[in-house]
């Protein structure tokens, strides 16, 4: 029997308070109250008393791993992680952005998460299909078992089956909606480049104006930069004000990487990200 959101919230509060009191961490990244119950916010607790403001409910979809890279190296941080978030943390550790010993991972087994904009359940569609964190120090609640296991890649079938021209039209239509607010890259835990390639002036990789070709350049390159790194949390799509289904493309690239290189992103600390790694016996077939 899985723990209820309320039970997890209580445990999260107690644990955060304990960690801050004992000084094991200086920051706890968790969720706090937003302007209403359906809109919780990422919350940064620094004092033991802050821990009382922590909440956790089905709308706490944000990926808190996003905030880790903001802190100077060596800061002791406790971070509340759901399944995809824990993969993001692992991926960041692989990329040496954070150190395992600086982090305390508070695992949140969560089932039935909802998109606060639409209210729909996101578990199988826009998140990685796991319910339990992959890596954690303390699990706040009981592991979720017995829920239907859906392959995160199932949603792709319909798009893969499309004719290439139809698929191009589909993506063109979606990318044309883009207003270049860059919420996708800012919400993404793996997008930490400074400056981002699209902000560079010399060379200029893509136009700044929101037109088809600049948008295409931005999104395709971003998909490429996240190849083998995207942990499928779906934050990019939820952040998008014009609802571009970016997660579909990310899933596709993740699927291809998994098939070609036999490794899913953010599953083991000792792995190397697939694109900064190689095997001498990689097949040339992958280029066909």
């Amino acid at each position, binding site marked *: 029997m899985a723990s209820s959101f309320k039970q997890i919230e209580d445990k999260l509060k107690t644990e955060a308070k304990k960690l801050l009191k004992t000084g094991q961490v200086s920051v706890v990244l968790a969720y706090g109250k937003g302007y209403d119950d359906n809109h919780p916010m*990422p919350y940064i607790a620094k004092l033991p008393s802050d821990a009382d403001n922590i909440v956790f409910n089905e709308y706490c979809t944000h990926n808190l791993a996003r905030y880790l890279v903001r802190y100077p190296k060596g800061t002791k941080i406790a971070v509340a992680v759901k399944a995809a978030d824990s993969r993001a943390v692992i991926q960041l550790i692989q990329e040496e952005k954070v150190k395992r010993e600086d982090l305390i991972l508070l695992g949140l087994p969560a089932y039935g998460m909802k998109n606060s904009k639409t209210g729909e359940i996101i578990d199988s569609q826009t998140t990685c299909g796991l319910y339990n964190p992959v890596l954690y120090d303390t699990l706040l609640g009981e592991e979720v078992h017995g829920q239907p296991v859906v392959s995160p890649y199932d949603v792709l079938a319909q798009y893969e089956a499309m004719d290439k021209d139809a698929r191009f039209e589909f993506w063109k239509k979606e990318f044309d909606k883009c207003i270049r607010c860059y919420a996708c890259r800012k919400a993404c835990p793996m997008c930490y480049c400074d400056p981002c390639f699209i902000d560079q002036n010399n060379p200029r990789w893509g136009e700044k104006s929101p037109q088809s070709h600049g948008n295409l350049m931005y999104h395709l390159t971003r998909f490429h930069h996240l190849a083998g790194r995207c942990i499928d949390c779906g934050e990019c799509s939820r*952040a998008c004000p014009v609802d571009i289904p970016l997660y579909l493309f990310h899933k596709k690239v993740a699927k291809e990487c998994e098939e070609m290189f036999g490794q899913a992103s953010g599953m083991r600390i000792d792995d190397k990200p697939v694109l900064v790694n190689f095997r001498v016996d990689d097949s040339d077939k992958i280029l066909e």
Partner: protein
Amino acid sequence: MLKKTTIDKLPDLAAHLMEQGTLLAPVQEAAGFNFQVIADAKQVDLNFHNTVLSPKAAFFPQMEDFVRYQTGKSILEAVPVELNLKPTFLFGVRPCDVKSFTIMDIHFSGTGLVDPYWQKRRQAATIFGYAFDLDQPAQAEEFYKTLGIGAADPDGSDVFMIRKGGDLLLKGVTLKGEKLLTQLSLLTAASADEEKYFEDYIIRGRDFKTRFTFLADKNIAKKLEDIFHDSDFWMKVSGACLSCGVCTFVCPNCYCFDICDETLFSQGIRRRVWDACMFTDFTLEASGHNPRTQVFQKLRQKIKHKYSYHVRKYGVISCVGCGRCTKHCPVNIDIFSIVEEAMKA
């Protein structure tokens, strides 16, 4: 004089307007309603609460071409892009968004330094304001009452529209609007009862409940100035901020832009595109120095620009309480709560 038509005849009304010029009206899209140039009169749909993007793009498009040129050739050969505007009808703008135009007017044309693109577009446009439905509760994000804007304020519109059941009541607010209405033959005259309903509706709109704690006034500007150096406060409220540009791009009042040259081989275009104070390169100087790099500094700038600097410079708050920034924020940051908290700090 008050005129009326039925909602069923909306396509006819739209078709009439399309004959006279360009019609911009709300259209249902995948992510919600948005203003679009109408090609098919049947597309016009007034069953919306408010649009995802604000209607500011009608006068201040996200991308505006200024000059076309050839690289390596004399500047004298550069060709300015002319604005060939047809009369434009901006149909179904909510009162808070209409108010935003009057605020932006001060900035773009009210201080002697006139932005010709804004001004020409503005002059070519007739705005059809459209009252919120007072029988439906306001959305949780909205707080226009705090800024003294009623849910059915006709100020700023040329024509103001109120829906009464299956009818649509229209009234000319400005001379331009009134003239237009007399030309539209499919409108019929409204009865005295309806006239009374219309007037009452406007008054009722003033008391329409949205989030409200105090009437936003100059005290906010003063208070925000006082706590400028209170970094702890700003860090606390900006803790979750991702510094993306959603809030500025959906805002009806944000007008910052960037002018950039975009070339394709030797063909160059100098154009203006929206920019946002949340972006890293917004304040990047040519020397490489960037005076505003921290997230809290950027969010502080955004809030202070709206509630403090704008008041100091132009005397009005540059926010209309439409709640779009809050609604679309990926991490649910609420500008209203921040201002509220600032007043307590």
